[in-house]
């Protein structure tokens, strides 16, 4: 919350009859009261040393869909070592189409696409272990999906 933001907030209030507003954003807090009340802005510092949250790809998150691992296991792009990959970068996939396999407890779990669209990125190498919730693919949804 920078001075710019406070300014904008004060500006917004000018032509209203609002007497109190509270905005919380990314750990900082702004509280403004008008007239006989007071205005306060608080910036609670983050707990120092806390591990960073897993960041989403900010720029892409608006349009791309991330397919994540629904279970712990080993990631395979093809049904057998000799077979071709289920999908490649650029592949168009339908909803329900198999994207990869996650092997757990000797069971091959087929991971299907939740949407129709185009594979933009494969985030994990073939044969690598993946944890629960780990991003596997980025898919650009088809228009009007």
């Amino acid at each position, binding site marked *: 919350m920078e001075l710019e933001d406070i300014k904008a907030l004060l500006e917004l209030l000018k032509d209203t009859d609002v007497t109190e507003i509270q905005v919380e954003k990314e750990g900082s807090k702004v509280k403004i009261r008008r007239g006989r009340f007071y205005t306060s802005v608080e910036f609670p510092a983050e707990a120092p*040393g*806390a591990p960073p949250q897993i960041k989403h790809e900010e720029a892409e998150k608006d349009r791309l869909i991330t397919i994540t691992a629904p279970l*712990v296991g080993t990631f395979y792009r093809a049904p057998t070592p000799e077979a071709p990959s289920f999908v490649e970068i650029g592949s168009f996939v339908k909803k329900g189409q198999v994207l990869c396999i996650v092997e757990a*407890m000797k069971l091959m779990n087929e991971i299907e696409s939740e949407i129709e669209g185009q594979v933009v990125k494969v985030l994990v190498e073939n044969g690598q272990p993946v944890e*629960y919730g780990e991003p596997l693919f980025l898919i650009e949804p088809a228009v009007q999906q």
Partner: protein
Amino acid sequence: MFKKILIANRGEIAVRIIRACRELDIRTVSVYSEADRQNMHVRLADEAICIGPAQAEQSYLNVPAILTAAEITDSEAIHPGYGFLSENPQFAEACAASGIAFIGPSPDNIRLGGDKAKARQVMKRRGVPVVPGSDGPLDSVAAAVKAAKKIGFPCIIKASMGGGGRGMKIVNAEEQIEDAFYMAQREALTAFGSSELYLEKYLQDIRHIEVQVLADTKGRIIHLGERECSIQRRHQKLIEESPSSFVSEKLRKRLGELAIRAARAVKYRNIGTVEFIVTPEEEVYFMEFNTRVQVEHPVTEMVMGVDLVKEQILLSAGMPITAKKVFKPRGSAIECRINAEDPDRFIPSPGKIEFLHQPGGPGVRVDTAAYCGWTVPSHYDSLIAKLITFGSNRQEAIARMKRALDEFVIEGIKTTIPFHKRVLENRDFKEGRINTSFLDRLHKPETPTG
């Protein structure tokens, strides 16, 4: 020895196990749910794997996910901690089937530990006294009435697979049995998946005293003295001590012998705890066999100068109890469980720890996974820290606990620290006059407790 161990748990016990592994130069893998991403056990382990969402059923109780995590990290063993999968014989078997060592006793040991009615029968046969009661499971109301009449009222009807106070009904007269029987059956089925019941004499003014045992794969069994666990609220222990101020040298010898006999009766291997009921007349009855590391294990560690979790890992790796391992007790230790709970009504108080300062100095040990800025999730057990103090005698251990509780600062959530301070100021507690109904008395203001 194991080179890498996966820890299938969270919170303070996961941190406790990581500490033992680090000191043994064993690499560690933590597993965690999405709610625990910021947890201390994730930060301290060499590797950490998310195994599912917040719900324990889909993460910390998710056997395929945990075994897969062990496989993909090349872990040679799994330490289950306490709770979660630690007393699940199927999990121990699944580990064995996957070629992964389970750090704990055999599946059969675990199975018997969970079946209270069967354990009673085995112990009785092997000369370990059990509370007078039904010979085995009750197959009908009539059987319950017969058993109750034989031993006299009051009695208690319990679930064979039970624990934690659920599925228990006290009956004071014959006409109460039928209702109690059917209610207990329903509760037991819901809580434990089995409606099997048994019946015992209901003993009052008793103490809950347990004995720590160690058993190696060669069949050598030793005990490490007792723990006094009578300060309970609804069958949940809150304060534990070692030694018990009630136990004389003679009684200690008897408890130790019975514990070893109990362990031998079931061919026990690994560390375990034999829980006893002790009456004011020093009558001792076997209650149950706990087949895992206990929450309250630190009080034994402080008095005996032993690291029980390291011992457990070494035993699981097939190491024998060596002749050198003669543990001699010294002084007195006490543990207070600090829960994220309202200290008056014991309602959970999850949330962000805004400030944390741990007590320190001589004779003070803190086992916790909490840190300044950590958010206690609402999905799991409310235990957030164990404060343990050691003194050259019980009085010093208590004085130290009081000053350590005064130093302990946890801001942002409610904790049971004020509750512990109240107990420690109580004259009955200070003088060692405690039993399992101590807290009921404490909360009745009319009781003259000083």
